């Protein structure tokens, strides 16, 4: 699914990352705990989170995650968006809850969790 389709599926607002609108994303990860993102994410995913602080952008950057969606109507402050922009990332804000945002993306065709094997 392309980033532009993620934006429309989530009825979201793209805060930065126009250049990535045609990037293809196959997997998604929903998490508010950044240590879990670092522990489990393996593939290139879209990260859905309700965690609005610089650590979400930094974690995504370190994990080569190019697209971050802030759920539950949360809008990151300008300096966070600027940091994402400097890192070449796309940032999307959606009014949907984590559950509904993940569900809408799953229904629209993103079925991969993008994680390492979890035992």
């Amino acid at each position, binding site marked *: 699914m392309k980033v532009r389709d993620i934006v429309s599926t989530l009825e979201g607002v793209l805060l930065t990352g126009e250049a990535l609108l045609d990037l293809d994303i196959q997997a998604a990860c929903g998490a508010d705990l950044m*240590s879990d993102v670092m522990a489990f994410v393996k593939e290139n995913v879209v990260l859905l989170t309700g965690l609005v602080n610089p650590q979400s952008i*930094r974690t995504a950057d*370190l994990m080569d995650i190019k697209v971050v969606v802030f759920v539950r109507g949360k809008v990151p402050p300008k300096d966070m968006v600027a940091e994402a922009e400097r890192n070449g990332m796309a940032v999307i804000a959606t009014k949907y809850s984590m559950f509904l945002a993940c569900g809408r993306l799953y229904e629209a065709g993103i079925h991969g969790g993008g994680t390492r094997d979890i035992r």
Partner: protein
Amino acid sequence: MKLRYEVSGEDMSLAGKASGEVKRALGRLGVNPAAIKRTAVCMYEAEMNMVIHGGGGVAEAELSPDRVVVTMRDSGPGIPDLELAMQEGYSTAPEWIREMGFGAGMGLPNMKRNSDELRIDSAPGKGTTVTIMVKFDSSEGTGA
């Protein structure tokens, strides 16, 4: 090549910046992406620990052709029970750290999982030094 960063123990908004710098430095040197990601995870977790528990400190990354050795040194209270601290899920982090997406007892296990060697020297009142070694193995793949 040796990189050195002062990690602030007071400004949480800066936490993770040193790890980002090292990640970019490894990228410029053409290190394979999987090893870069493993280094970044280890160093970021260690950097967060240093900010949360250690009151800040000094982070150093020594780069060789086949490996990176990251040393994170703080003068904080030290770790009283290292075996307990290594257990996944064990945490002494305060609630406000959990609200920042950390402090769930995943840090040290994450470092162990992603490093080729992890050494923790710590004693109560004597601070903590975490040494992380990651080998650059070209057979490791892209990390994607």
